[in-house]
């Protein structure tokens, strides 16, 4: 349908994303190929992510590491008091989030899991969503799963959440009347003005964004997309975003966790 011409691209290079993914190994998957957002970025951005020093997301990894062993709350504990070395104890945790929580009777994501630990075990105040502390800890814990393939459960009690998430992914919202799928399923691998559209995968979050020049948690990114189609975004950590997080994680089953990724 579209014809890529010199005028349109203004010398924009199409990133070499094709063939950089793998076929989903579950039936009825909406994508022919599952591809990390990294493949859709320029080589400068890829280079920034691939070197752990150049990647500014590591500032948050280091802050998270410092917070890990910092005692906080009435119980006089730090994360390390119960979980010792995160390198061992947190390995793979991020890859299976969001996960069913029997006590809460709902799935929880990593931010919520950290705050549950803080209030229940440390007797400390939960961190506010978007606070540097919560994002740093989410990044630090998430980073321990780097390379681990995403493997969320969507069966049993998770099923209704998964279905709700799928519905939200295809719901058209906002004055611009657009769904996640409009861009990230139907039109990935194309330039939207100069934005090269990815599959909207979540395996790199929290992600260092070149635009905001800081780490952005997943639900903030969801809000940004909804805002841009002139929709009234759901609240971070709302049931809607939890369901959406679960569903999109499933769309990326098998993608290695990249936390902290670098994105535009």
């Amino acid at each position: 349908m579209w014809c890529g011409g010199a005028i349109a691209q203004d010398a924009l290079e199409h990133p070499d994303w094709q063939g950089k993914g793998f076929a989903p190994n579950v039936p009825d998957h909406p994508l022919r190929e599952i591809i990390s957002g990294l493949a859709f970025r320029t080589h400068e951005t890829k280079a920034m992510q691939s070197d752990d020093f150049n990647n500014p997301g590591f500032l948050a990894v280091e802050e998270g590491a410092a917070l890990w062993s910092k005692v906080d709350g009435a119980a006089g504990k730090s994360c390390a008091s119960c979980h010792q070395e995160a390198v061992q104890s947190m390995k793979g945790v991020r890859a299976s989030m969001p996960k069913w929580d029997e006590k809460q009777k709902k799935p929880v994501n990593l931010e919520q899991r950290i705050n549950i630990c803080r209030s229940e075990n440390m007797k400390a105040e939960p961190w506010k969503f978007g606070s540097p502390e919560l994002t740093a800890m989410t990044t630090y814990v998430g980073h321990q799963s780097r390379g681990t393939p995403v493997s969320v459960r969507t069966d049993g009690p998770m099923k209704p959440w998964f279905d709700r998430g799928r519905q939200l992914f295809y719901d058209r919202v906002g004055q611009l009347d657009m769904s996640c799928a409009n861009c990230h399923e139907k039109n990935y691998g194309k330039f939207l003005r100069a934005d090269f559209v990815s599959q909207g995968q979540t395996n790199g979050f929290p992600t260092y964004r070149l635009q905001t020049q800081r780490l952005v948690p997943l639900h903030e990114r969801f809000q940004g997309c909804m805002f841009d189609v002139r929709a009234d975004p759901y609240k971070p950590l709302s049931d809607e975003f939890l369901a959406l997080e679960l569903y999109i994680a499933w769309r990326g089953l098998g993608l290695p966790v990249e936390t902290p990724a670098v994105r535009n």
Partner: protein
Amino acid sequence: MTNVKPRIRLDRKDIKKGDTIEVKALVSHTMESGQRKDKDGNTVPRKIINKFTCTMNQKTLFACDLEPAISANPYFHFKLKPQESGPLIFTWLDDDGTRIEATETITVS
């Protein structure tokens, strides 16, 4: 992010005279440009790191004066040809007078 220490990476610390050391330095800072408006339309006051220096034995080997056009979390990559051993002292100066320091000791033989 107050807990964050600056990050310094030297590609090596023991060198022979005439050799080159590659230095990378990264510090956590919002580099508030003074040109941004907040939600209520008020200009957010400028607050940036305005100077970065790398000194040894009171001599400045490399320095940079920064303007608000430097991205948040300022990153520098540069190369030194140190003539003597000693501590390399890295300093970041904030508009508000705050000084951030880091040290890496090198040996030149």
